């Protein structure tokens, strides 16, 4: 057990270290000087521009040698300081991200969990059923093959613009002030639906076919045949097969998180939903590398944490790993 997690933790730590280093490198290697961008077309006369330039360079801590900047970065990181945004100067990157995170959680958690649940159930259901296998399953493949933004665009266009049933921008109406009123919550859900459903559908397709293919292998496994030979009802056989097929799906979930994040990113862009993805785009378009840095860091941490949780879940559901680990090997 210890060995297993020890190894996992090493991976996580080294991943984190690497990622953070890449992350730190971004603004330093990016073209364009954030200060110049911040100051472009402000002061009227060249010499005053020079004065402010040096001033802001100090403000962003870009005046010390690179290695020092790197150490300062780590130091600041452990104090929860992700630096100052250029786009939203003088706001702190951390505060911006913290404002955005709830929207991501609100969008991603339901989308991921529901699509995972529904997809697996459906896939198990469709497997080895000639009719479903040939009719609905191709749909699953089409869904996973659908580019996130395209599904978003289609939904925004059809349901949002042509039919006019759903709003296709922002997290809540521009005429609303956040509050715990029913009206506001309904409004929130109304805006949440389209981005949610486009994330859900694509995830659903993927999990469905994943499970379908997994469970077919399981149904062909010896233990399934033995159960059949002992006249166990179809239900029981499938139940066991599902239980075994779900395991790789769980690891799959862990490894998919990165992809899902990127999907959420473009979806948020399409529906201008103010989550991290939305900020990443803002940051890129406005060359706000500090913000970009922060968002990226946040994603990294999110993915790592989620992975770790899933690892723990996996160990609890799969006896083989657990017993293997007691044996000391993993």
């Amino acid at each position, binding site marked *: 057990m210890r060995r297993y997690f020890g190894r996992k933790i090493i991976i996580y730590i080294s991943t984190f270290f690497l990622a953070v280093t890449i992350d730190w490198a971004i603004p330093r290697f990016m073209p364009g000087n954030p200060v110049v961008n911040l100051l472009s077309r402000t002061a009227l006369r060249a010499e005053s521009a020079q004065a402010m330039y040096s001033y802001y360079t100090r403000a962003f801590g870009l005046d010390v040698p690179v290695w020092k900047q790197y150490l300062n970065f780590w130091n600041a990181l452990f104090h929860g300081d992700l630096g100052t945004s250029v786009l939203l100067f003088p706001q702190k990157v951390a505060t911006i991200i913290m404002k955005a995170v709830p929207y991501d959680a609100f969008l991603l958690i339901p989308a991921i969990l529901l699509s995972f649940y529904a997809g697996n159930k459906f896939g198990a259901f469709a497997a080895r059923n000639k009719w479903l296998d040939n009719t609905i399953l191709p749909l699953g493949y089409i869904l996973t093959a659908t580019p996130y933004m395209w599904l978003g665009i289609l939904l925004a266009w059809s349901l949002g613009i042509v039919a006019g049933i759903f709003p296709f921008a922002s997290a809540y109406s521009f005429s609303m002030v956040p509050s715990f009123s029913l009206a506001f919550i309904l409004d929130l859900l109304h805006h949440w639906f389209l981005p949610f459903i486009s994330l859900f559908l694509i995830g659903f397709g993927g999990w469905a076919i994943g499970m379908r293919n997994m469970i077919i292998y399981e149904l062909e496994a010896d*233990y399934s045949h033995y*159960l059949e030979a002992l006249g166990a*009802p179809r239900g029981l056989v499938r139940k*066991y097969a599902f*239980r*075994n097929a779900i395991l790789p799906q769980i690891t799959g979930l862990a490894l998919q998180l990165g992809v899902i994040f990127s999907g959420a990113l473009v979806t948020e862009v399409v529906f201008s939903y103010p989550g991290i993805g939305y900020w990443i785009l803002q940051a890129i378009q406005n060359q706000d590398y500090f913000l970009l840095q922060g968002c990226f860091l946040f994603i990294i941490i999110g993915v790592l944490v989620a992975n770790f949780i899933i690892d723990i879940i996996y160990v609890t559901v799969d006896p*083989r790993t657990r017993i293997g680990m007691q044996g000391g090997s993993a």
Partner: protein
Amino acid sequence: MSLEVKNLRVYYQTLRGDVKALDGVTFNIKDGEIMGLAGESGCGKTTLGHSLVRLIHPMKFIEGSVRLDDEELPIWDMNKMNKYRFSKISIIPQYAMNAMNPTRKIGKMTSELLGSRGVNYKNTLTELNRRLDLVKLTQDVLNMYPIELSGGMKQRMVLVLSTLMNPSLLIADEITSALDVSTQKAVSEMLVEFRNRKYVKSMIVITHDISILYQIADSILIMYAGKLAEKASTEIIIHSPKHPYTKLLISSLPKVGVRYSEKKLVGIPGNTPLLLNPPIGCRFRDRCPVAFDKCVEEPPFIEIEKDHFVACWKELGENA
């Protein structure tokens, strides 16, 4: 009569056509009889074993009838068969090693399995434990996952599991092939023990290893190329076989333990015919040292003396 098989035909569907793996087999097994089923690989013995329990694609039921305790078994119908499986006819599969769901505790799995057959686990628990002792398994295997058991233990566990509902017929498919000699002996003795204790009425023991059968079987059925060659009591098959194939088989039988199928039969020239479109007449004809013109006709499987059946014109000729 425990089991009566009449003219059973089961083919394998392949793209090149039907492989006549089981081409009209007829035999009986008495109550309490342990029948060994032997023959080279691909002679159809496994097909026979499986078709009695779980006849699935690409196997195809052609014709014939299987009666167990004077009751017709609908072996062609996967679902109808469920009624008989486990309770009346059961199997210890070749892959006993990984026959149990890896993610369920053995006890839980057993209870769920029994439950699905409307049997209460609690009530059977005492009996279950008794049998576990019998096969020298501690009771706490029930709280273990299969991965925690050794190969032999799994095998014995499966033995107990498969026979838990006292079926009248148990099919043991190559159960010893994966074990070392000593364990082989133990397991086979357990089979006999189970029979003696009436946990199972009768058995078909499918194996490559005639020496095992010599220890446990009451009678032996020799198959060749999807047809029956000879059936008689173990004594007779071993000491005075009639069918030329059986004779060669026994004579070429190396010392106990080694399975002949691993190397080609010495002294028997040629190969087993392809069952895709087998030769008419006696299928052993081409390799048979004593073959003669009559052999182009299909030899019937006839009882030449009590409980001794042979399908060979020579024998029939002499006694005719």
